């Protein structure tokens, strides 16, 4: 796949940035002439991954969240959301529907939502080092 454009951004893990980050990625991706639905899918998956960095990775601190968004020639978008937070001990368990380590207001469905609104989801994590979530989505775009 040939890369045609790329966005990189770093921002504080503050909840006020949830809205900003999903809008920024969506507006960068809109160069692909996406449908409203596809744009919504992108916003949703970014929001889930960024929220996880804020509430889980940097639970008791403020740290950096790194997003790279790459647009490929064939209309595929790859978004990586990375943190240098606590990491995940058991990724397989974390990705199971309804699993949450926090309870309360968390539903444990963040990874399920990311999976459902993208084509590919990959999670790499190391305890004490951090987590990288990679999401790929092929944009079909508006029918001309």
């Amino acid at each position: 796949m040939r890369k045609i454009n790329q966005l990189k951004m770093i921002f504080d893990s503050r909840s006020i940035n949830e809205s900003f980050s999903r809008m920024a990625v969506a507006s960068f991706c809109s160069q692909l002439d996406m449908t409203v639905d596809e744009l919504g899918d992108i916003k949703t998956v970014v929001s889930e991954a960024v929220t996880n960095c804020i509430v889980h990775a940097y639970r008791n601190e403020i740290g950096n969240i790194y997003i790279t968004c790459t647009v490929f020639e064939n209309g595929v978008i790859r978004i990586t959301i990375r943190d240098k937070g606590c990491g995940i001990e058991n990724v397989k368990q974390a990705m199971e529907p309804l699993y949450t380590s926090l309870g309360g207001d968390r539903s444990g469905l963040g990874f399920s939502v990311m999976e459902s609104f993208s084509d590919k989801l990959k999670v790499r994590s190391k305890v004490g080092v951090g987590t990288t979530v990679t999401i790929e989505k092929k944009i079909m775009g508006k029918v001309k």
Partner: protein
Amino acid sequence: MSVTIKQKNNIMTAQIKGEIDHHTVPSIRDAIDDAFVCAENVTELVIDFSEVTFMDSSGIGLVMGRYKLAFANGKALRVINLSERDYKIMKMSGIEKLAKVSKKGE
């Protein structure tokens, strides 16, 4: 983001306007719960999503929490006017087995 509360007969409706995410949920939750706890003669709480412009899985926690509050007080919960996407997200939680959940125009 704002919440408009209306009461007609025994039904209290909370209309949410704007984006629902982990950042906005606390103030939406407080606005609904404060009104719900103070209201008199309410038998059903309705959450209206017609003016919601974005929701992620944080919306599930919001609705589940309001269901638990209503249920604990012997009241029913209904969620109305969900967009196609928000309905799909909401259904992942199985909430439709506990409360009436409907899409826009239903």
